[in-house]
Structures are given as C-alpha cells and as structure tokens.
C-alpha cells in the first residue's frame, strides 16, 4: 500500500461505482468524493455492532460468549468425550460446555439450533464475562 500513488488511487476510484473513498496509510490520508451521479447506491460502512452475549453480524457466524467468569471445559469429565465437535449440528437446549465457578459446574446450553464453526476458548482455561467461546452458524 505504501507504494500506491495518488494517480493509481484516483484511477481505481474512477473505475469503481463508488461515490466516496477515504484512504489512510502510513504516509498520508486521502478522501475522494464524486457528486452528480444519482444512480449509485451509497456505500455505508458497517458501524459497530452492539455487544451482546450472542454477537450477530449479517451473513456471518454468531459468537456465543461466556455469561460468567470460570474455568472452561468441553467435556463433562476428564475422560469423557466432548459435548460438541466442530462441524456438528446442535439443537436448542443442547449442552455446549461446562463453566466451573465456585465449585459449581454450570452447563451452557445452546439457545438456538446451530452448527459449530470453531471453539474459541481453551480447555481448562479461565474465561472472563463476555469472552467469545464458540463461533456458530444458525440453522
């Protein structure tokens, strides 16, 4: 990007359908704007999403966050198989994991049917409130 010169930027802009372009890099900041073409839909950059226990971004996977502070376990007991596996489909109410806090084993259940895309927390590690635990895709 550092080698990108103004000419290239404008060229790129000209060949796009954009009405505005803002660019910032190490050495400069540039903002381009085109008026008069009423046919183009303005591009609205996605603003910050509100943080929820289930973060949702359109067309992107959901994030299931930890509702409490505790130790994260994917298995009901040390020798048992994990509650879930990546790629598996989960029904509402299925147990996803255990979060141990104050010697209590808190089972975290799925609130909607989904497919597990990724496990984001580490087995046996501490998780904070709001920490992402799973990436899932709603079904």
């Amino acid at each position: 990007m550092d080698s990108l010169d103004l000419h290239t930027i404008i060229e790129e802009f000209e060949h796009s359908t954009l009405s505005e372009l803002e660019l910032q890099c190490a050495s400069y900041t540039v903002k381009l704007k085109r008026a008069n073409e009423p046919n183009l839909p303005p591009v609205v950059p996605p603003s910050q999403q509100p943080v929820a226990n289930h973060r949702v971004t359109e067309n992107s996977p959901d994030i299931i966050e930890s509702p409490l502070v505790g130790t994260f376990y994917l298995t009901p007991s040390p020798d048992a198989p994990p509650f879930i596996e990546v790629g598996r489909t989960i029904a509402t109410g299925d147990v996803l994991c255990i979060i141990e806090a104050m010697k209590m084993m808190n089972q975290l259940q799925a609130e909607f049917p989904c497919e597990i895309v990724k496990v984001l927390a580490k087995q046996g590690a501490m998780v904070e409130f709001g920490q992402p635990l799973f990436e899932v895709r709603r079904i």
Partner: protein
Amino acid sequence: MIRSILIANRGEIALRIIRACRDLGIRSVAVYSNADVDSLHVKMADEAVCIGGPTPADSYLNGSNIITAACLTRCDAIHPGVGFLSENSRFAKATENSGLIFIGPDSETIALMGDKIEAKRIAKAIGVPTTIGSEGPLADMQTALSYAEAVGYPVILKAAAGGGGRGMRIIENRSQMPEMFAAATKEALSYFADGNLLLEKFIGNARHVEVQLLADSFGNVIHLGERDCSVQHHHQKLIEESPCAALDEKTKVRMTDAAIEIFKHIGYRGAGTVEFLLYNDEFYFMEVNTRLQVEHPVSEMVCGIDIVQQQIHIADKEALPFSQEEVTLTGHALECRINALSPGKIENYIPCGGPWVRIDSHIYSHYSIGCHYDHLLAKIIVHTSHRNHSIRVMKRALQELVIEGIVTNRDQQLQVLDTMQFKTGQFSTNLFDQVMSVQKSQTRKKAYA
C-alpha cells in the same frame, strides 16, 4: 503471605488500592464491568478480568464472578474497597470459604455491626453514650408514637437494616407520624428488603465526627484521630477534615477511648471507623463502619500512616508496627470531594497540584462519566500546619482545577469553604443545605429584580 490481591471495586478507590499494592510489591488484579473497559483501574492493575455487565448487580456485586476471578488469577486475597460488597458479610464469608483472605474484618464482625440495633445495644452496654430512642425495631406506628412522646419531638426514623439516608425521616410533631412512618417503612423495604424501623431523638444542630481505628489480630487497637464529616448533602459526605474544629481535648480523648473500647469489646480486626454525633461537647454513638472509608486520606495525611497498607498487613496476620504513643498527629488535613453533577465526557482535565496537595482520582481527558455508578470524580486532599492554611490551599487547588465537558460541584464546594460558619469551624450537618438555599433565594431575587 499475601502476594497478589484482587480488587473488587472500581474508580478512584480501586486506584488507591492498586497503589498500595505497588508500594508493597504485591501483584494487583482489577475486575471491571463492560461499562468500565476504558477505566484507569483496568489499565493500571497488573491484570484485569471482565466480570459482567454495567449494572452493579451483574458485576461489582456479583460475588461469584469476583471470587472465581480471584481464584483463577491465583490471588491470595480480595480487597473489597468501599461500597459495593465491602460490608456484605455473606461475601466476606464466601471469600473465606474459598480459601482466600478477605481484607477486612471477620464476616461475623461485619454481620454483627451491620445490625444497627445490636451495635447500638453493645455500645450502650459498655457505657458509650447513644441517642435515646427505641431499643429495637418498632412493632408498629403506635409504638413509634409512644416512643416519640417519651423522648420528645423532633424524632428521626431510621431503617434498621441500612444507611445512606434511605428510609430516614425526621418528624417534627405527632401529626406527621402516620404518613412518615408508612413512607419510611416502604423505602426501607424496597432498599434493604427489610421494613424494620428504629426511632431516635433527633439532634438537629449536631456534627458528624468519626474515629479512625486500626486493630490487629493480637488485640492491639489504636486510633488515628478523628474526622469531621459534617458537610453533607442528603447524608452524602462532601467535605471531611481532621482534626475536628469543634472538639476540645477532653472530649476528643473520651471519644477515641470510647471507640477503642468498642473495638476491643467486639474483638475487631482490621481498619474501621466508629461514627458519632457530636452536640455541645456531648457525643452519641451512631454506628461502626467495618471497612475502609472514602475519606481515609484525611487521616493518612495527619498521621503519615498508609491505612490501606496497614489493612493488608493486618489481613496478613502481622502485628501493628507502632503503638498508640508512636502515632503523631500533625497539622490539619482537609478533603473536598469533586462530584459530577451530570454524566458526559470530560473534554479537558487539568489537575491541580503543587505543595500540600494530594489528588486521588481516576479521571483523565476524554474519559466518559456514565450513569451506572457514583459520581465521585476526584478527592482533593490538602495537608498543612493549620486549619486556616488548609482552607486557603484548598481554595487555591479547587480554583486551578480544570474539568471541562461536564458539570461538577466545584463551585458549590468553594461556596461552602467561603462561608463564615466553615471558616470559623462552627457548623453542623445542615451547613451545605443552608448554603444552597441561600444561593437559591439569591438567584430567585435576581430573577425578580
């Protein structure tokens, strides 16, 4: 041995405890709610754990998340700070049960002194003067009426289960009782889930004076002098000082002796405060605060002792490193609390500074003041050789303080410092309201002029 402490609080008091940890070479772990991500206590601590949402019940009152965070970050102890869980005996007990040290008194002591009727009974039993009134909760409105007749109006109704002005009503005469009794019961019930009320003779022109104490596990109890906290608004302290300008040497000795007597009697361990009403050289026991207090710096400055460090040493089962005779109280210390009167973003903050000034504050330029927590922005503390010097230095400090973007009570504080009553040291707990009502009537006059 305490090598790391989780600080179960936020704001300036969390910074205060982190600083004590640093000075002692102890690792500090902060906890924070979603609303406090940009807070200084999160940045300053060695580690920080998010424990819940903005509402206190979800985070700073969420004992389970706090204790779990302390265990998982391998802390040895929890410091509860002031407010929130600091006087919650169940939290103290749960902390102890988890194998952690609670930096404060035994959970039993907290529970005992949390029961205001019982605390007053104990004080009375060992000969400490208390205000006259009901010895226990009032059975009904009729009982209240007969107590009021016995002690004479005005009387005050108080919630048996809590403080902070909630459930309090002053009753001037018999006819006000039915309505006030009902209102106070309702308020007490909603704030403390306990509608029980006490009745006391109301002492109108009194001062609020408290004694700061330190007690170790070996029966040593010493005091660090008294604090006058009479400048209040709705029972919230605004200005504190030590020594109290209205206390003669004889009364002071009697008061500190009484406070030490109470602590010895209940086997208190830790830092704590005994609060008294002072009226015409007579004092009356009010309650024991089983925790650090917001205004503790005022005592720290006159005695040169770090109260938070001592709390930690005591919790670590160390003996007090000095005797009462080795504590020297020098000069006069004064504290003004700077509160936000509106939420918003601090656009520009230039703190005051220079000689004789200490600042305990968690704000900075571009910090946002939300509406979830109390509105304390900064404590300005000055320490000089004499009370009149302290007042002048405090005025200088307040005048040079710049906090732009939100409304603060700085000008109100300056008005109080400028009154003849405050300057001469002759005032009571109604000084602040008097000043504000004079101002209001003047504003009204101007509006009509």
